[in-house]
């Protein structure tokens, strides 16, 4: 939606992108607090890569560098991807992800405003399909890690792959709560047994993860209060997760995780407020946004419960991205003054 003609507002892509980055900060801080320094290194590395790849792509397409580099959209993509990856992801994982995000998903489709799919989610999807092992080596929450890595040790692990002597890989990484659930269910345990046997489950979501989710929620609410994102998408996305998960949980509480647990995952909150709300790849009509959000939430839970991958936010949003032209075509609001169709 654009501002009405009589409102004097300095609206620009750069301003929106900077505000999005600012509203991601609470989430980043919670991340550092709960999971250590890895995420900061990944964010910085992804941002550098994003700007370099964006500059390269612009050069190849003979576009001017400065206005497009300064709009900040590449950095937002970088942050969204880095926040979706494991906090101690090796450097080449981020590189491959950014190559697909900026090179394929953004510039091969025509650059900012032309891309059908959310670039960060394309990068994520490519990585989880290609490198499932590395993508599930999630850094353990600091409260559970045997020995938290210092900044230098994190740097060494991300760029060199080496751990300090005497420290095994199991001491720094652990499965995510969603991953633990999936593995347990495959071994025919009930939800209750899995949650009792593992330390990764916190009071609402996962240990550490629930705080990050809460911080994303806070940042997302600020973004909404500033009218950067429309309320329909996050509300419908979370409602879609809640309703679908609630139904499944009601049908079989021993197999399907409770709705509050599904919503308190960082990926769900990040997806609801920062990824599904992408103005380029999301629906543009008010009713369309509700459908888009509900569909994405529904698919997220379905993929988590029945799919082959532990989390479904990325695939759900990409699938709904595909439906956007159809949704927009069928949800055009009537022209003001026109008679309502029966």
């Amino acid at each position: 939606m654009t501002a009405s003609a009589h409102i004097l507002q300095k609206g620009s892509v750069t301003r929106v992108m900077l505000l999005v980055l600012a509203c991601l900060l609470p989430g980043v801080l919670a991340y550092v607090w709960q999971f250590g320094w890895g995420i900061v290194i990944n964010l910085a590395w992804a941002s550098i890569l994003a700007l370099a790849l964006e500059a390269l792509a612009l050069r190849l397409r003979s576009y001017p560098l400065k206005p497009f580099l300064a709009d900040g959209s590449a950095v937002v993509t970088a942050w969204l991807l880095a926040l979706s990856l494991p906090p101690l992801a090796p450097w080449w994982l981020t590189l491959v992800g950014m190559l697909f995000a900026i090179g394929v998903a953004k510039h091969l489709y025509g650059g900012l405003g032309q891309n059908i799919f959310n670039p960060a989610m394309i990068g994520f999807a490519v990585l989880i399909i290609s490198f499932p092992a590395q993508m599930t080596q999630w850094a353990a929450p600091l409260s559970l890690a045997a020995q938290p890595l210092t900044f230098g040790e994190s740097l060494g692990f991300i760029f060199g792959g080496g751990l300090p002597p005497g420290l095994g890989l199991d001491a720094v990484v652990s499965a995510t709560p969603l991953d633990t659930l999936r593995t347990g269910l495959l071994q025919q345990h009930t939800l209750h047994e899995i949650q009792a046997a593992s330390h990764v489950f916190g009071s609402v979501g996962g240990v550490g993860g629930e705080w990050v989710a809460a911080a994303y929620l806070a940042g997302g609410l600020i973004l909404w209060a500033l009218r950067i994102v429309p309320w329909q998408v996050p509300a419908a996305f979370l409602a879609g997760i809640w309703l679908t998960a609630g139904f499944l949980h009601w049908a079989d509480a021993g197999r399907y995780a409770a709705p509050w647990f599904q919503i308190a995952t960082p990926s769900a909150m990040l997806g609801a407020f920062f990824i599904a709300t992408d103005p380029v790849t999301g629906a543009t009509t008010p009713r369309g946004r509700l459908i888009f959000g509900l569909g994405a939430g529904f698919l997220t839970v379905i993929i988590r419960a029945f799919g082959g991958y532990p989390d479904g936010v990325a695939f759900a949003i990409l699938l709904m991205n595909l439906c956007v032209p159809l949704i927009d075509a069928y949800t055009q609001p009537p022209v003001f003054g026109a008679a309502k169709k029966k």
Partner: protein
Amino acid sequence: MISKQEFATLAHNGLWKQNSGVVQLLGLCPLLAISSNVVNALSLGLATVFVMAASSLAVSGVRNFVPHEVRIPVFILIIAALVTIIDLALNAFAHPLYLVLGIFIPLITTNCIVLARADAYASKNHPLHSALDGALMGLGLTLVLVILGGLREVAGQGTLLSGIDLALGPAAKGWVITLLPDYKGFLLAILPPGAFLGLGLLIAGRNWIEQRALRRAQRDARTAAAQPA
């Protein structure tokens, strides 16, 4: 007999100008499904070349006897008979490869490019020309298959010619080339999305070469016009 000029035209059409893989976009089903490595791609490509050459020859031979209305069933029967020969031959002489290629050998029957050439070219031209056209069109498809298979194999697992022992027996096991030792593997390239991405890049690459050649030709034409003789 066939003249050099005619041969050059057929070859240019089959291999570049009307390449079935990257220009006509026909026969994509085996192209996308079987191009996960070079050996599979080359085997299926050569089987298709044989079927196309033989079916074009046969179709061209009967072109004056087949009523126009029932030509498609007749062509399909001819093609299916030839595919059955290839199917049985592979099963007998390269059984492991037969197991890998599986359903895609019988599916050559339904490959659009085979019927397309039979109907569009062989049913209107001399048998010799038709057989040559079928073979060259098939070679064009094989070329794309092999390039795509090579790209996906190198990107996906860092080797070339893996599985060659399936086609040529255990003696060929040592022929596998490992280009990238200690490669972690890039699963996406092996999986179906890798085929679509790879084919898209090949089509883009071909278009880029064509456009560059076109621009160069235009520039040459301008400079030639600007200089009075």
